[in-house]
């Protein structure tokens, strides 16, 4: 198809890249891996300036040789969306290189992410994240999310690890691998990917089997992240029930319980759509098996919030400051059961939590003395193995053994 190639080799459907990853980037280390593939840290070279994170999508293998097997829908979505999107609070794509049957998405490098920042605040002992920093993080996160939602993009996988933070304190929403457009989808959103959002951040309507969900699922996740920034622990840390061999989606009873323990049972009086939820019966059975008293403690989120402020020594006179009652109100609106009544990104940005209490810095580290550790980058795998598929011994190793080695090193 490419002119030169067609003339040279007479292989008209043959694909050769015009740009090679190695010509532009020098890999300096390995960052992380997931089901999609691996992420590397790289610096530009040969005239290219900057530091980058390169996401390499794992190609399918048939035996030892890598074959073209068609790209995953998730890769296609992420490529298309990242190419189209541009916003200060959404991760910036540098370029996409298709080379040697692999996809390399080159992103700006971000030094931190919220998971790492939260973790840092639990070491060596717990010390709360300053209230002003949380306010800036949340404001920027909502800003990016508003951009996504007004462009009909659902993120569907918001969690601390996917919220990136640059060294200058800018928040970037990352990992759009599960994101998709929701404008009049051809198939119901449910039919494509049956399980969406890491379980601790999964909205109640998803747990109850909703077929048609909305941007409200992302707002629930933001609420969970807000709570986690305040308490340094996931607010609803349930245990996931694995999908069975028939690939039917199980009811996530434990996760639902965790939510109910803090918010009380959802009621059809305050959530009219509740009875129409596919898993409504499951929810009722869950209510029957529990002590009634357990569900009628009333303002449970409020007591959770108050004890969280107390444990974190948040108060207007302390160094950490306090998110105050506005913070509670915003959190409770994000963790609203009924998705149609849950606060939207737009409404949240106009909430008194942001409009009261002075200016919000676009640098979440502004006024913070202490430094966060840099992202951990390991040196055990700096070979992305492009163009040398059957070269060294190492490249002959199955991908998993390398992966496990990297994980061990991390721990």
């Amino acid at each position, binding site marked *: *198809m*490419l*002119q030169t190639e067609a003339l040279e080799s007479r292989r008209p459907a043959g694909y050769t890249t015009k740009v090679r990853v190695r010509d532009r980037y020098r890999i300096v280390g390995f960052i992380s891996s997931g089901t999609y593939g691996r992420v590397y840290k790289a610096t530009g070279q040969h005239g290219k300036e900057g530091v980058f994170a390169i996401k390499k999508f794992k190609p399918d293998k048939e035996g030892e040789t890598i074959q*073209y097997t068609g*790209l995953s829908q998730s890769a*296609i979505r992420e490529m*298309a969306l990242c*190419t*189209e999107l541009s916003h200060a609070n959404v991760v910036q794509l540098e370029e996409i290189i298709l080379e040697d049957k692999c996809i390399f998405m080159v992103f700006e490098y971000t030094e931190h992410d919220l998971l790492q920042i939260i973790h840092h605040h639990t070491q060596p002992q717990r010390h709360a994240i300053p209230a002003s920093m949380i306010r800036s993080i949340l404001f920027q996160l909502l800003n990016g999310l508003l951009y996504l939602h007004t462009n009909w993009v659902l993120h569907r996988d918001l969690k601390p690890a996917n919220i990136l933070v640059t060294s200058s304190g800018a928040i970037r929403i990352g990992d759009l691998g599960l994101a998709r457009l929701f404008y009049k989808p*051809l198939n119901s959103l449910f039919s494509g990917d049956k399980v969406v959002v890491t379980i601790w951040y999964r909205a109640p309507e998803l747990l109850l089997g909703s077929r048609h969900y909305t941007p409200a699922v992302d707002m629930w996740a933001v609420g969970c992240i807000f709570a986690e920034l305040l308490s340094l622990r996931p607010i609803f840390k349930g245990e996931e029930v694995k999908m069975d061999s028939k690939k039917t989606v199980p009811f996530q009873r434990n996760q639902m319980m965790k939510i109910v323990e803090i918010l009380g049972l959802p009621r059809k009086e305050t959530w009219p759509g509740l009875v129409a939820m596919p898993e409504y019966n499951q929810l009722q059975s869950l209510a029957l098996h529990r002590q009634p008293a357990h569900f009628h403690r009333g303002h449970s989120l409020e007591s959770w919030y108050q004890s969280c402020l107390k444990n974190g020594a948040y108060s207007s006179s302390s160094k950490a400051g306090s998110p105050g009652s506005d913070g509670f109100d915003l959190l409770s609106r994000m963790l609203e059961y009924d998705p149609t009544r849950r606060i939207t990104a737009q409404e949240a940005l106009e909430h008194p939590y942001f409009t009261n209490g002075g200016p919000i810095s676009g640098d979440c580290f502004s006024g913070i003395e202490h430094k966060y550790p840099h992202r951990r980058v390991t040196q055990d795998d700096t070979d992305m193995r492009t163009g040398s598929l059957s070269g060294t011994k190492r490249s002959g190793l199955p991908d998993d053994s390398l992966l496990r080695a990297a994980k061990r090193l991390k721990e």
Partner: protein
Amino acid sequence: MAANYWASTQRRHWLFTREKLAEVRDRLRDQDKASHSQFPLPDQRLLNIYFNQQLIKLGKRMSTRQQAIATAQVYLKRFYTKNEIRQTNPYLVLTTAFYLACKMEECPQHIRFVVGEARGLYPEFITPDVAKLGECEFALISEMSSQLIVHHPYRTLSELQTELALSSDEVALAWSVINDHYLTDLPLLHPPHIIAVMAIIVAVVFKPSHPGNFGNSAQSALAGVMRDGGGMGMLAALSDKSGSGPPRVQNLVQWLAESEVDIKAVIECTQELLSLYEVWEQYNEKHCKELIGRMVRTKNLDK
């Protein structure tokens, strides 16, 4: 982006002027003059009709929705602004465009299934090896710079449906007109809302005497009326703000004047559609098939 056509890659990278598009194609031709004289192909629009029929055949067997077919057609157009068709196996390219569009429009089909279906239709030109399609997918994505999100006029049509109080017959006809516009260069030349407005005008002005099912294309319903002087009459009605013509059309003209839609562009699109319906009469599926088949076989493009 998805909601924002104005900031989209479609507007920034895939909108051509007529001159620019002609220049791009001339350049491709100049790079391979020998093939051009050795393998003449039908008018681009006739080829488009042929490709579209193939996509519909593929889609039918997999019950794919029209929007995915439309996206595949746009991918083909974009790809062939970067590559000379005579250096490709069009059957492979169109099957790949279909496969990719289905993923992008969230109605994915398994690669083996797509290859199987395509082989059923073109056993001579599609090899059972799925890697061929996978490789072609890389070429398609790369040539389109990963800009895979396509804005279609269907959305504007459904948004305007209420505002303009369109009847279901009018909407159905406008929908078919939109289907037809993919057979022309219009998707590379005009933003989707212009196309949608054009389709609505055509539907309202030429409301056919036999309302009902127009099928996929509006050609049979419209070719006659538009050619018989109707087309020109409509163009006149659009430019005439003094308010002659039937009230339904007058209302539309009024709305157009207030909406700041580029009327000149709308008229140009109407003319393009009219000329498509004229050229359509020369369409001969067998002829297209023979010319493409000879080219692919002689040049070993399917290997």
